[in-house]
């Protein structure tokens, strides 16, 4: 991947982000105080982030049922982080100090270290307060035959994942109806992720500009279609039937379908992906802001 070292702006931004990581380094294993339990009669996730928000189904739930559901939805959210971070660490680990990634490798050390710590505190939350980490089926994705496209897709997916998570983190960090432990986990993650997102936007933009030089219109369409499907896949992960089952909902699959069919959910989903969609459009990666149904 020639060219990254020639981009002065990219090199300067990397150095600034590395300096920030070093200056802001903290010990995550001492950063948090973990109470024995969190209150059952309060929401564990901001109400407007829950998968029932704004729907007809929501009106059928009692306040106690909403609290119970928010507990398992929050465990699902942190589990998604554990799963997502595992995958992104594997992908970055495959590339660190390999040909083409000489320039960002120093930053990768900080990235991998910080992501490992995030995975620890998210897993800690899930296991302490939910007794489990939700997991999904493991179907390995088959890499693209062109390594340049594969690199671009990998870092685009990492960026999209981080941006969606950050929307949730920022909202919950600022929500004073939530317990302080919940707010802090989200606040600390947001503070680190702002550097990772800044890096991701620079790298994805650069990789795409290199690709676009000789990519056909069809290849660009395929890339756009795949990444939009990834966004929809990520949004759908918030509607986890295992969560509904744990929250005591009858017919979890039927419940999920009713939520997905409710037009109010499209507005909520759009809000959560507003920033990454705007970035993808501005970078020329997306030609429009339409998303597939599933």
């Amino acid at each position, binding site marked *: 991947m020639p060219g990254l070292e020639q981009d002065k702006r990219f090199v300067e931004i990397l150095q600034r982000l590395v300096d920030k990581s070093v200056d802001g380094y903290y010990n995550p294993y001492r950063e948090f105080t973990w109470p024995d339990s969190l209150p059952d009669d309060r929401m564990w996730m901001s109400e407007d982030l829950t998968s029932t928000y704004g729907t007809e189904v929501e009106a059928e739930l009692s306040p106690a049922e909403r609290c119970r559901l928010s507990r398992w939805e929050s465990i699902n959210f942190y589990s998604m982080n554990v799963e997502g971070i595992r995958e992104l660490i594997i992908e970055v680990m495959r590339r660190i100090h390999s040909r083409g990634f000489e320039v960002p490798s120093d930053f990768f050390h900080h990235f991998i270290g910080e992501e490992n710590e995030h995975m620890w505190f998210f897993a800690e939350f899930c296991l302490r307060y939910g007794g489990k980490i939700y*997991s999904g089926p493991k*179907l390995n994705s*088959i890499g693209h035959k062109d390594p340049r496209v594969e690199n671009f897709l990998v870092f685009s997916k990492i960026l999209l994942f981080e941006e969606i998570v950050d929307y949730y983190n920022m909202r919950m960090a600022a929500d004073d109806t939530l317990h302080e432990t919940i707010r802090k986990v989200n606040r600390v993650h947001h503070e680190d992720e702002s550097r990772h997102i800044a890096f991701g936007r620079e790298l994805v933009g650069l990789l795409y500009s290199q690709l676009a030089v000789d990519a056909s219109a069809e290849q660009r369409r395929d890339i756009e279609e795949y990444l939009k*499907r990834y966004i929809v896949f990520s949004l759908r992960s918030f509607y986890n039937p295992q969560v509904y089952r744990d929250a005591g909902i009858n017919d979890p699959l039927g419940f*999920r379908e009713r939520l997905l069919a409710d037009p109010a959910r499209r507005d909520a989903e759009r809000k959560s992906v507003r920033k990454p969609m705007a970035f993808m459009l501005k970078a020329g990666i997306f030609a429009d802001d339409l998303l597939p149904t*599933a």
Partner: protein
Amino acid sequence: MSGSAPEQLKKWILDRHPEVPDIEPDFDLLENRLIDSLAFVEFMLLVSRLSGEDIDMEDIDIDDFRTLHRIEERYFRAGVL
């Protein structure tokens, strides 16, 4: 969604792959990327809904979803299809 369960599964896939005219029962859906990692969960949940079987997402055998024939044997074997 109307039709028998296998017809519904096949239609679900074909709707997402207009370039594919039909799917043979023993055609490998995963190897040939008709179902990829982004589509797998939704497809699995569709199988769960149509079969009425509560599929444990954390403990499934991916090979049970490899072909329409295998899915039929595993999830619809009581002559439902």
